[in-house]
């Protein structure tokens, strides 16, 4: 199947048109997931309450019963559990990389192997995060290197 993304006219709204003989279950569930996905996030930093754009989040980390969203340089607390964020953003480009962290794949500059079977993700803001052995496979699946069972 070919994927064509066109820019709309300046005053037109965004529209997704699927042109196919019979849309399969995978395609329908993808579209439904996109339409129903709740991607709004509220971040808390000192006295400020900020609406966060999930695409700008580098990673989420759980620390001492709190969950934080890491931007390029700012860190916001979010009132979600890590597994809830995984459910919300898992279908997007976020992937669990350890028990306490979910990373945005779009923010990974490159990966390098470590001697312990773990991987090190070098992020675009210069930070490094560790991808645990048991989560390497899910990253491979997300990248289309391994297939979902």
């Amino acid at each position, binding site marked *: 199947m070919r994927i064509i993304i066109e820019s709309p006219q300046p005053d037109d709204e965004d529209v997704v048109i699927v042109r196919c003989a019979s849309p399969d279950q995978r395609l329908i569930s993808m579209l439904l997931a996109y339409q129903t996905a709740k991607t709004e996030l509220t*971040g808390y*930093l000192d006295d400020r309450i*900020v*609406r*966060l*754009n999930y*695409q*700008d989040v580098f990673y989420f980390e759980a620390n001492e019963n709190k969950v934080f969203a890491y*931007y*390029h*340089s*700012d860190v*916001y607390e979010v009132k979600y559990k890590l597994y809830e964020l995984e459910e919300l953003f898992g279908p997007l480009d976020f992937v669990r990389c*350890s*028990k*306490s962290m979910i990373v945005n*794949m*779009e923010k*990974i500059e*490159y*990966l*390098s*192997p*470590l*001697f*312990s*079977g773990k*991987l090190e993700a070098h992020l*675009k*803001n210069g930070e490094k995060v560790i991808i*645990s*052995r*048991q989560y*390497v*496979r899910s*990253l*491979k699946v997300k*990248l*289309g*290197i391994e297939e979902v069972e």
Partner: protein
Amino acid sequence: MVKEFLISFLHYFVDITTAVLIAAAIFLTVSGQQMESIILWEILLSGLITALPTAALLCFDSKSAKLSWVLWIVHFLVIFSITLLMLNLFGWCSITPKSVILTFFAVVFIYLFTCFVHYLVDKKHTTLMNQQLKKRYSNGEKPEEHKGA
């Protein structure tokens, strides 16, 4: 999780057994000793016994680098003790200061060999993953937003 463990266990079994075979071949060639066929089964058994704690200990999701190092040291000591025990049990040699030192170097060799093989495999996989990351995100580069929307 169980599947990941079993795959990891099988990989370590193959790597450790190969390394023990190389170490045994070097030792037998240098010492000029003759080998009995039973030693092959003993090598396979030693690979199996040492692969088990290796897969179990190294699948822990260590959060900090310090804990990682502690885990590696504990693992090394466990493997070293098991190897000494097996050497005595199989009658390969009696426990003397010389045999302990030689065993130490043999375990270090097997350790480095296994780590190196795993590193090479992981390096190959990360190259593939980096290509996928590049293919997926190089076209959609956007300017970084540093603050919450």
